[in-house]
């Protein structure tokens, strides 16, 4: 295969070889079921609890606040359904506040709960993709059991003011006539974990979802941070693993991989964030220098270091993706033609721009292995592709 330039790290990342090495002993050598009380079981349990400690320290939590799951979608599902189902006996019609720009795993879960009688408020972002904490303040009411917000958006990379939102909720809790401790704040941090501060105390969150497949870890593994004392109902029942919150034999190799992946993210620190954001800025500057009618989606600075989302007017996104693909470059689009429901991106649409912006949107998500040469190559081939597609386009 000829060299590929992979710029879809927000979709998933390749496994870091160091992660693969960390997983290696847990397929054949240390394969036991951690529930076993004999040697094989004890060794697996030891590994599991070591990894839990590691993951906990990544978010500045204690190990018993970490629940391993099968990934981001399951963590989000557990947080949302888990909270609502716990509150059901106490409140007739529970209320959830979320946003219009959530990942589908949150949005579709909320839609399902609406069918079951739960009330959901979807906050709108401003034109830059930011949610105003004041809007959250206005939406809160005694029946609100959960606020769920995507920390950094998966499409446009916009980073929400989570600590401010946490303060709003804290103040509301003090004055509220509702039940003590409500509402809980959950954040979907799957995209954020590679680049942003993940300290749950600084963020002020009660629940946090993250996973392995966005941080050069294995796929099919994630975790939910749950603040001590917060009650949750499981969505998967069985042998009672993970304190009864997530039954099923623990996926030890993947859990070891996740712990190692987060360790590497931590080591990379600010240096890696700076390196990637510089490349991202160069890419945007290089594209806009040569191609007209290209617009940035999402806030210019309050965004993930690796995310560039643009709308190219006059051209449809899927066409650009396939032309870039033919040139060895992998990116994604919010075009309707690229979705299973034939609807354009709900995130770009929520920014209040004409529908053409969503159809012509492109997401470049850079990563650990993106180089200056990669970016220069994209800048070199991009203008000709757009020129060609615009020449056959029926709209201006």
């Amino acid at each position, binding site marked *: 295969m000829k060299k590929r330039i992979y710029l879809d790290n927000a979709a998933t990342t390749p496994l870091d070889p160091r992660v693969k090495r960390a997983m290696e002993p847990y397929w054949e050598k240390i394969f036991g079921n951690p529930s076993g009380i004999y040697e094989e079981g004890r060794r697996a349990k030891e590994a599991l609890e070591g990894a839990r400690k590691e993951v906990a320290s990544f978010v500045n939590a204690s190990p018993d606040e970490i629940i391993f799951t099968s990934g981001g979608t399951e963590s989000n599902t557990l947080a949302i359904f888990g909270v609502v189902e716990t509150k059901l006996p106490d409140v007739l019609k529970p209320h959830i506040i979320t946003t219009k720009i959530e990942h589908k795993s949150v949005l579709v879960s909320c839609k399902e709960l609406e069918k079951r009688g739960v009330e959901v408020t979807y906050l709108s972002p401003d034109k830059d993709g930011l949610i105003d904490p004041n809007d959250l303040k206005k939406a809160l009411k005694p029946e609100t059991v959960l606020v769920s917000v995507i920390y950094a958006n998966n499409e446009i990379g916009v980073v929400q003011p989570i600590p401010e939102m946490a303060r709003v909720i804290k103040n509301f809790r003090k004055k509220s006539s509702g039940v003590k401790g409500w509402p809980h704040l959950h954040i979907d941090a799957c995209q954020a974990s590679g680049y942003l501060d993940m300290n749950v105390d600084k963020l002020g969150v009660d629940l946090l979802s993250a996973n392995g497949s966005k941080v050069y870890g294995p796929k099919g593994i994630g975790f939910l941070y749950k603040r001590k004392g917060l009650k949750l109902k499981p969505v998967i029942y069985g042998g009672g693993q993970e304190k009864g919150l997530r039954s099923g034999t623990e996926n030890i190799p993947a859990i070891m991989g996740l712990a190692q992946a987060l360790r590497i993210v931590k080591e990379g620190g600010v240096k890696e964030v700076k390196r990637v954001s510089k490349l991202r800025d160069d890419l945007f500057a290089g594209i806009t220098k040569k191609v007209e009618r290209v617009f940035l989606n999402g806030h210019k600075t309050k965004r993930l270091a690796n995310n560039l989302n643009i709308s190219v007017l*006059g*051209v*449809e996104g*899927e*066409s650009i993706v*396939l*032309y870039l693909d*033919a040139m060895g470059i992998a990116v994604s689009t919010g*075009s*309707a*033609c*690229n979705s*299973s429901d*034939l609807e*354009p991106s709900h995130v770009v649409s929520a920014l209040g721009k*004409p*529908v*053409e912006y969503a*159809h012509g949107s492109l997401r470049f998500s850079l990563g650990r292995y993106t180089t200056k040469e990669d970016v220069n190559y994209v800048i070199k081939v991009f203008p000709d592709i757009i020129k060609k597609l615009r*020449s*056959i*386009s*029926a*709209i201006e």
Partner: protein
Amino acid sequence: MKRKKPQKIEKKEKKKGADVWGRGGDDWYYSDTVKEHFFNPKNILLDEPKEGDFDAEGEVGSVACGDVMKMWFKVDPETKKIKKLKWRTWGCASAIASTSVFSEMVTEKGGLTIDEALKISPQEIMARLGGLPMIKVHCSVLADQAFKKAVEDYKEKRKGK
């Protein structure tokens, strides 16, 4: 642009080795013919048409739906055959490829008459493309509709003559 999915496909329209209605719901692979027409579209109108270049034009689709297609054609007054058919589209790979292949079908081998060209069905376009991903079938084959619009325009313009 949404259109009704035809219920059944005539057997004769099926090409060997190519399922006309695509290769499963979630499959994104395009046939080699689709790729050829997508990367090298035929009969694109590059410059704005001048007075007299074409006899008629038609446009279908909308930005909201994600596909917009424009089509122009010229009929040979002697033979009554379409000697030139050009188009432009804003849309995905299958929209581009299906229009490109339609323009070939209409103009190859000396060209078709308007009535002959009107008979080209979306199924035939797809068969010639070697199939399209299932999900694209109902929305992206717009060429026949754009052509019908252009024919309406053609008839309208000739009324006074």
